[in-house]
């Protein structure tokens, strides 16, 4: 079974430029998450999708970040304009609808490492 695919793996941009990250979740996984992980910290939830609808985006800086999940499959996360403090790894994860007790496993991609100069 193919895992969560993310691209690009690395991106270096200057502040005020824009960047976009792409994620293809595991086939059939209805729930998709974007996390921001700053060096030395745990992943911070940015946005959660259920199919193509937004479930939670309370931590997404909406003045510069946007995300969409058209057709309920692939997703893109965009930053425009980027700031120095956006330097981080952006992790995409997907989860199958829960079966039985407890939440199912979150499957993560390898992440997209962003450096803003």
């Amino acid at each position, binding site marked *: 079974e193919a895992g969560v695919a993310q691209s690009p793996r690395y991106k270096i941009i200057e502040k005020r430029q824009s960047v976009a990250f792409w994620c293809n979740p595991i086939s059939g996984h209805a729930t998709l998450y974007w*996390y921001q992980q700053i060096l030395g910290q745990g992943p911070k*939830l940015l946005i959660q999708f259920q199919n193509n609808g937004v479930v939670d985006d309370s931590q997404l800086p909406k003045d510069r970040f946007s995300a969409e999940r058209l057709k309920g499959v692939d997703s893109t996360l965009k930053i425009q304009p980027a700031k120095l403090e956006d330097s981080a790894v952006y992790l995409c994860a997907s989860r199958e609808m829960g079966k039985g007790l*407890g*939440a199912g496993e*979150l499957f993560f991609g*390898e*992440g997209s490492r962003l450096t803003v100069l």
Partner: protein
Amino acid sequence: TQLLEQSPQFLSIQEGENLTVYCNSSSVFSSLQWYRQEPGEGPVLLVTVVTGGEVKKLKRLTFQFGDARKDSSLHITAAQTGDTGLYLCAGVTGGFKTIFGAGTRLFVKA
């Protein structure tokens, strides 16, 4: 805002020693998960605990969920160098919103 606090933040021990990592919150979660993350990779699930007071064992790792479903602990017996990594606890709400702690970075020396 739901927060998960992990302690310690960093742990450096000798091979063969035992250790315990703690995850605490003021919020109640539907379930709690523990993940391990290697450099350059995404976190990988170790275990999910659902019931208050639940204890799960995975080889040398023992996971416990607090009775009130607000806290958890991870105990490693006889640590090995292969246990080195970042250990993350994650609280899951009823809507499958998943919040991570800041992590405990473990380094096991040979």
